[in-house]
């Protein structure tokens, strides 16, 4: 083994080495580029970080991956009882449990992604202090790891649709786009919060509060059709409103065809994501010293 590597290295030393570029390490100032190309070259690390998060997530839990379902499912049960039965909340002409659960699946993905990514940098402090890699990989991996939970919860949604006899339409093809929108929103907010969390540990306490507030500010327990125009469109300022209504439209065929609300949501999500990414990159140089 040793000789093999020796020969190889000898060959490398003797042969012409590929012209490596010179890397300059110097202080940076202000806003810096996102260096997405570099993130791409580290895609295998990203893959392993996601893989680790998924592998470790349910170790030493008794119920394992069932937790991915329990959270949205029981929220749906509670919503169905209180808002559906007692509150007689309108549900866009689909059974209320389906109405709520179709929204809770993307919502849970978003909420978990937000809280995981917000704490991701602080949780990876030992890594950040000892190894260089594009720091963006940490919150991105935290959000991506939630896709497995999403898939598990989604299977239950399909089961419920079969049970209630709700047939999906061709709109289902749009679903990945709405998932992407949820991902962009979670990551956008997560980038802001994770970078802030390095400086201010208050973020840890802010996130659960924000998530709870955001849950009720999103049309999950109620339909956005309750609002008249122009307020209905303004509602799109909450990007999760667009995600949730888009999911319902694509899956269970509610009358929430993507329009002004979804367009506004998409715009806000993109703004949140780009601003978050640039803020993150700007703060990145302090991470290893402060975290």
């Amino acid at each position, binding site marked *: *083994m*040793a000789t093999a*590597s*020796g020969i190889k*290295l*000898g060959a490398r*030393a003797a042969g012409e*080495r590929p012209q*490596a*570029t*010179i*890397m*300059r*390490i*110097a*202080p*940076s100032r202000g806003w810096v580029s996102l260096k997405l190309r570099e993130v791409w070259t580290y895609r*295998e*690390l990203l*893959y*392993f970080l996601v*893989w*680790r998060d998924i*592998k*470790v997530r349910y*170790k*030493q839990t008794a119920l394992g991956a069932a937790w991915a379902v329990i959270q949205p499912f029981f929220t749906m049960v509670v919503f169905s009882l209180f808002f559906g039965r007692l509150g007689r909340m309108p549900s866009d002409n689909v059974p209320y449990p389906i109405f709520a659960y179709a929204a809770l699946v993307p919502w849970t993905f978003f909420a978990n992604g937000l809280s995981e990514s917000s704490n991701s940098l602080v949780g990876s402090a*030992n*890594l*950040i*202090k*000892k*190894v*260089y*890699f594009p720091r963006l990989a940490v919150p991105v991996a935290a959000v991506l790891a939630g896709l497995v939970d999403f898939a598990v919860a989604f299977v239950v949604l399909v089961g419920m649709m079969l049970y209630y006899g709700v047939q999906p339409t061709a709109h289902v093809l749009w679903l990945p786009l709405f998932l992407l929108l949820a991902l962009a929103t979670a990551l956008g907010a997560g980038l802001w919060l994770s970078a802030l969390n*390095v*400086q*201010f*540990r*208050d973020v840890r306490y802010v996130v659960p509060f924000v998530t709870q507030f955001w849950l009720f500010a999103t049309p999950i327990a109620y339909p956005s059709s309750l609002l008249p125009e122009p307020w209905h469109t303004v509602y799109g300022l909450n990007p999760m409103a667009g995600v949730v209504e888009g999911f319902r439209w694509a899956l269970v065929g509610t009358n929430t065809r993507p329009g002004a609300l979804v367009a506004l949501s998409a715009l806000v999500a993109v703004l949140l994501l780009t601003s978050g990414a640039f803020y993150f990159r700007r703060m990145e*140089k302090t991470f*290893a*010293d*402060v*975290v």
Partner: protein
Amino acid sequence: MSGNDDDQARRQTDLDNDIAIKVERLGKRYRIGARQESYRTLRETLTETAVAPLRALRAPFARGNGHARRANEIWALKDVSFEVRRGEAVGVIGRNGAGKSTLLKILSRITEPTAGYADIEGRVGSLLEVGTGFHPELTGRENTYLNGAILGMRRAEIARKFDEIVAFAEVEKFIDTPVKHYSSGMYLRLAFSVAAHLEPEILLVDEVLAVGDMAFQKKCLGKMGDVTAEGRTVLFVSHNLGAVKELCQSAVVLKDGAVVFRGPAVEGVAYYSRDTLAGDADEGLSDRGTRWREVRVNGAGSTAAQEIAGVEPFRVEACLEVRDTFVEARLKWRVDDAAGNTLIYNVTNNAELAAGELGAGLYRVGVEVPPLWLKPGIYTLFFKLTGRRASGEERRVTSERVTLNVTGRLNNHGQDRAVLAPPLRWSLARERAATVS
């Protein structure tokens, strides 16, 4: 040696292509406050922001403010410049806090410099710690892949070297066991093994060899030797002066964030032992011809490192040549560890030494040392003579520093973190056959 002229010629024609690392006036400033309470709460920031205008208003009256701010900052590294040629193995030595780790962190891009720049040509692999990112719940196999990816290896590369990594770590049997069930020795062996199979063009290493038991440390040093022999560029931070001498051609000695020596490794180690470790700037080897000579451990000469076992008593001797009378003379004997901590500072009192007056002549000084129970490692020891002239002027003479190599065995239960390794006698007797519930 033979290629010296050759080297010279190549450097002139092809200077740029020959340099792997060029560090130019590199500096890193830390705010002490930010360092000690590493993160702040929002409340603190808000209060500070609210108070700042008030402070600005007061500023004309209290001018000390700017100074206070500056006093809160320290330069961990300042104006550091040096070059490393391709294929050169450089040891970076210095006391704790001299800036070694900061330098390595900047070169491995973990933290940004505050001033200056560094140019690096080639694929960099840095090893500031072994086992970074190891997760206790994952198996040895899973951690090998994860850790490899974190260190910058491709998946295919790890797969290709996997058997070699496992064999080197000697954990074949447990490779599919979660590492939380590993002994600390196994854990470290696997962690080092992954790191050792990194094949970058430029390797930055921070003191990772100080892990595991002696046998494994030897193996690690061997592996490091292979790496340097293969002609890769290595920057090696270490307290192990012996290893630096053995593995590196040249050395950079850092002191208080600045380069104080750049040259051949042997001279660098000598420089560090002599000056950096000394601490006191005002001491000389001679005072008007009065000097120490021939410091010996157990009767052996002082040129080579002296070897003693940690559990055995030993005797240190020296000759002291006094040219003119020392008043209030005191003899001192000091032992420092490799990190520069003073472990022993023994001072004679005047009652022991001829009423404290030392006339001209040649003296033989001896110290009988009981077993010190030092853990195995490198130490330095030296003598000092302090006193006054008849006129009352202070004077001091220091002997050369002798390297003491304490031998012994450490097993792998984290004993290397301790200072002492005394041979204790344990007893264990069962008082009762079963616990009463």
